[in-house]
């Protein structure tokens, strides 16, 4: 098998195949990066809305809670199909990449909103009381007191989710998006040995996710709230 793989190497790493893999890697990276950034931003916003107490915001809180609880419970593939068919029913002419991107953003937002909510709630309530009696607004309390203390709780599961999430973007291949998993399948269909193809795909996924995990660890230490840095 190794001899066969060695024989395949020159044609496998041809210029066009490398370009094909690079494009697929770019797609996986774009889906993951945009999903992470949008998911983190919107997830934070949704978590902050869920923790408000003002009666006027109750409808918004209910909507946010429904969104979060619903999309955390639906498999990614189902969300992907849902987005695909909803846009099709609306006659919206969206590319497959856009459909996949919307799906990953929806899923990432729902999961991160829940991680952030539990992280913010883990900060002792006496910190909220102290901020309230010092006349901090809700947003000042979050920004100056609660979020800086919650980072240490929020970041490990968020980056754990990001790493899982990069792998989940492989499901976008189901609707024809040419990302890493799709590229692997295509190359395998072209006749290259599965071990060589998926070994390469494995390394590319690792190359994407390992630096992200290290970055998470760095942020965790950097943003630790006290002397225990």
């Amino acid at each position, binding site marked *: 098998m190794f001899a066969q793989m060695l024989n395949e190497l020159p044609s496998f790493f041809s210029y066009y195949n490398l370009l094909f893999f690079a494009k697929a890697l770019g797609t996986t990276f774009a889906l993951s990066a945009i999903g992470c950034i949008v998911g983190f931003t919107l997830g934070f916003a949704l978590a902050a809305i869920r923790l408000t107490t003002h009666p006027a915001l109750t409808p918004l809180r209910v909507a946010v809670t429904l969104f979060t609880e619903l999309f955390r419970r639906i498999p990614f593939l189902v969300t992907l199909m849902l987005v695909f068919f909803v846009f099709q029913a609306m006659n919206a002419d969206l590319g497959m990449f856009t459909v996949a991107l919307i799906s990953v953003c929806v899923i990432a937002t729902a999961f991160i909103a829940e991680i952030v909510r539990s992280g913010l709630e883990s900060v002792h309530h*006496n*910190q909220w*009381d*102290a*901020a*309230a*009696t*010092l*006349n*901090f607004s809700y947003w*000042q309390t979050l920004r*100056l*007191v609660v979020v*800086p*203390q919650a980072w240490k709780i929020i970041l490990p599961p968020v980056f754990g989710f990001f790493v899982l999430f990069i792998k989940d973007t492989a499901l976008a291949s189901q609707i024809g998006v040419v990302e890493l998993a799709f590229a692997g399948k295509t190359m395998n269909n072209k006749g290259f040995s599965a071990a060589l193809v998926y070994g390469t795909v494995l390394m590319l996924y690792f190359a994407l996710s390992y630096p992200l995990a290290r970055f998470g660890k760095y942020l965790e230490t950097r943003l630790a*709230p*006290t*002397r*225990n840095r």
Partner: protein
Amino acid sequence: MPQLEIVDLKANYGAHTVLERINLNVEKGEIVSLIGPSGSGKSTLLRVLMGLLPPISGNVRIDGQVLDYKNVHQLRTIRSRMAIVFQQYNLFQNMTVLENVTVAPIKVKGRPRREVEDYAIHLLEKVGMGGKLKAYPDQLSGGQQQRVAIARALALQPGIMLLDEVTAALDPELVNEVLDTVRLLAADGMTMFIVSHEMGFVREVSSKVVFMDGGHVVEMGSAQQIFDAPQQARTREFVGKILRH
């Protein structure tokens, strides 16, 4: 005119009434101590006064002005005129001692950083914490944290200070360093509400002692009256028990 008037105040936790028919006047410079068994409503009264638990009925007047706890702007006024020091200090764990004391005047009141820091350093020196400006709360003893909490409350220049069992969480040998700080405030003429189980201290500093039980004010009077000649049987029972120990 009393600096603080509490008129027929009532508060609930859910369906359970925790304070009822609270009527109390506090003159400027008075030190009012709230005593009573656990669960009698002393700390709850302070939480209600700070708007952490909105009252169901009754009202609170500061300098003759009736303040509505449901109105956000008036709640801000209440919290700018009164400051509370909590039993568990409640210092912001992500901030240094100096940041804890300066954050509200700078971020909430928008006062110049330099001016606020100079005043904060003066206050921290006054409470004996001038050498710990860059320390984080978890690097300090309980007594030190409590003194920083007192400086933080003073930094907003409140008219009335509420001290909620400020020595209850401290080791016995740290109690005095906090009580000395409170004595300093008393000597400056600060109006204070003190919830405390340190009866010797209550007797020493209070202009008025209020005995509470079951969410009601049972009796109030001078320290001498409450401790030496209580009028109510429940007060006599409580004072008799605590003075025996």
